[in-house]
């Protein structure tokens, strides 16, 4: 099983680096469009940690990537505020596309993560947040 860990300081400018790194690693076993979606999910998770768990405190984000065949797991660890129950419930994204004032300007991140990844598991452990997401990457044809 190939394994790599990433660590970034929780600044938004570092998120693209992890995202691109993860995308490329996935590309070795799946289509470019699947890899792009995994990058998107990883970016949303990092953005959430920076904006919500750390707010303005800029702690570290540790990411453990494991690739076993085409089975991908990504574990995100931070030492920010814990995730509220509301953020752990299955996310909704309901809106009327024609009702302009009602359109969501945010609140799409969790929905995307849930939609893109096969599973997601959150744990609070020793003042750390550990979020593990998995996806079966289909093999490149």
């Amino acid at each position, binding site marked *: 099983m190939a394994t790599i860990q990433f660590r970034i300081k929780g600044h938004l400018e570092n*998120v693209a680096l992890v995202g691109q790194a993860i995308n490329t690693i996935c590309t070795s076993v799946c289509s470019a*469009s699947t890899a792009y979606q995994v990058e998107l999910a990883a970016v949303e998770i990092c*953005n959430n940690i920076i904006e919500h768990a750390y707010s303005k405190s800029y702690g570290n984000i540790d990411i453990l990537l494991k690739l076993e065949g085409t089975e991908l797991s990504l574990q995100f660890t931070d030492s920010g505020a814990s995730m509220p129950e509301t953020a752990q419930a299955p996310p909704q*994204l309901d809106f009327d596309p024609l009702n302009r004032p009602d359109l969501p300007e*945010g609140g799409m991140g969790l929905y*995307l993560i849930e939609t*893109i990844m096969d599973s997601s598991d959150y744990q609070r452990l020793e003042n750390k947040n550990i979020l593990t997401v998995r996806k079966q990457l289909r093999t490149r044809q």
Partner: protein
Amino acid sequence: MSLIQTHAAANVLIVKVVPNRLDAKIAVNFKEEMTKLIQDGNHTIVLDLSGVDFIDSSGLGAIVTCLKVLGRKGDLVISGVKNDVMTMFVLTRMDRVFQLFPTIEAAAQSLAA
């Protein structure tokens, strides 16, 4: 340095997003630049995303904000969305909110009509 480049064509303002990632890092500034343009009286806008390779939900949210700032006063349509970026519009169903055109010309024409 500005995140957007603009030029006017007929009554339409063409706004090109310059960075290749429209993400949380720049979403707030992008929203500010766009809001200023709208408040300056530009109410029919083509947003050209042909240079954008990656968009996250903050970037998409910022585009939605533009639409809401325009309100009933005007419209914003989008051109040049790449395949990967399109994924985002489809996953969030924002492809039903925005009119998406392959070229700037087609987009501008839809607004002039």
